[in-house]
């Protein structure tokens, strides 16, 4: 609690931040604490990041530590891997995850393998932060998620917050990590206005340093009848669906993955052991994705399923530009309600 809040007993003791502000705050605290922490990327200086991830940092830390780069992901993400090998702790922004093509060698052949190939003698303490997700008519090269593309590769940790508290704590964990962490943030949760913002992503954030551990999911709503697993935006869709389902007598448990790699298989197993029904909601492409991995992991356990697990995803086509085409393809609360009702058919009249 802040001093102001304590003194004003009738007012809410809250200090609310958007995910964008929470990320900026975490980076600023780390830069204050450690001169080795620097930020690189396109428009991360004076603009403060296209998605607001570096707000106020140039003014506080100067252009030597907050470096606007030319539009060459090949160059500046490669440079970050080298900086990390030389003992710096770079945070580098890949503006849209869709742009990974020209810098993937640096990410998966250099950064991800650095520690393994050097016998642990050279680590790679870099954070790659990148925007994901569609829903606002920006077409197939600016709307993808590609969670599984990165999570598939050994040596990379991949995280994504659904709210500002987790954003700050996960970012502080990512910066402290000795190895590369891909920090994904969903555009629809960022709080930038022009993309719309899901209100549930804006939560109380303490001003001090704290961490949210990488590799641990959170149960954001307890329930006994069905497990809904989501990440980022789809957590909010699942929560919305859970409210509707509760009115029909179905109590959904909602799990926020928070970390994609490593995946918190224990949390999923514990939930499905109780509910024996599972739906994964994932706005990435359907096949070979996070949804498939969550379901496969759950099925490797000894679960006496009441219904076959299901997934709600974007289908295996590039994300369309036209809202009339794009919106029906994305996961929605209505789709989750429909699928949950189907899986819980024995509970519904």
């Amino acid at each position: 609690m802040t001093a102001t809040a304590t003194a004003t007993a009738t007012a809410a003791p809250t200090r609310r931040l958007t995910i964008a502000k929470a990320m900026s705050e975490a980076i600023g605290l780390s830069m204050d604490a450690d001169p080795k922490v620097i930020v690189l990327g396109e428009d991360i200086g004076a603009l403060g990041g296209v998605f607001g991830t570096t707000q106020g940092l140039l003014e506080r830390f100067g252009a030597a530590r907050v470096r606007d780069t030319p539009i060459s992901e090949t160059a500046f993400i490669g440079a970050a891997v080298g900086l990390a090998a030389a003992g710096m702790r770079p945070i580098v922004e890949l503006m849209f995850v869709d742009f990974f093509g020209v810098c993937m060698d640096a990410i998966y052949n250099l950064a991800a393998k650095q520690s393994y190939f050097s016998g642990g003698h050279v680590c790679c303490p870099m954070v790659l932060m990148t925007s994901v997700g569609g829903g606002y008519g920006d077409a197939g090269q600016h709307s993808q998620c590609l969670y599984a593309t990165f999570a598939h590769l050994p040596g990379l940790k991949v995280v994504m917050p659904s709210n500002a508290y987790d954003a700050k704590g996960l970012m502080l964990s990512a910066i402290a990590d000795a190895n590369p962490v891909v920090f994904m943030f969903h555009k629809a949760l960022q709080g930038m206005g022009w993309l719309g913002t899901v209100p549930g992503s804006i939560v109380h954030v303490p001003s001090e340093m704290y961490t949210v551990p990488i590799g641990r999911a959170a149960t954001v709503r307890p329930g006994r009848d069905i497990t809904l697993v989501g990440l980022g935006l789809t957590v909010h869709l699942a929560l919305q669906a859970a409210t509707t389902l509760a009115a029909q007598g179905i109590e959904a448990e909602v799990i926020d993955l928070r970390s994609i790699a490593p995946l918190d298989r224990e949390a999923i197993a514990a939930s499905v052991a109780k509910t024996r029904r599972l739906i994964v909601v994932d706005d990435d492409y359907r096949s070979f994705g996070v949804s498939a991995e969550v379901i496969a992991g759950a099925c490797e356990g000894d679960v006496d399923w009441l219904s076959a697990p299901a997934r709600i995803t974007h289908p295996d086509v590039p994300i369309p530009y036209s809202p009339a085409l794009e919106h029906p393809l994305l996961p929605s609360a209505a789709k989750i309600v429909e699928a949950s009702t189907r899986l819980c058919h024995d509970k519904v009249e």
Partner: protein
Amino acid sequence: MDVIIPVDLWGEDGDAVIATWLFQSGELVSPGAVLAEVMYEKASMEVTSPGAGRLTILVEAESPVRQGQLIGRIET
């Protein structure tokens, strides 16, 4: 109490937009709490609470706003 966009928030004479409200109507807010973020020409600015009380939002997020405009009320 009125929640007003400060008359000198972005200096120039142009429209901004409420990027997001950090609280919803009906919630209790503290004095000085950041209530909303306003975007002007890709720059983000904050509107803080003039006092303690229950917030009523008068201008929704994503709406255009001018400096000096009334955007909410706080009832003590």
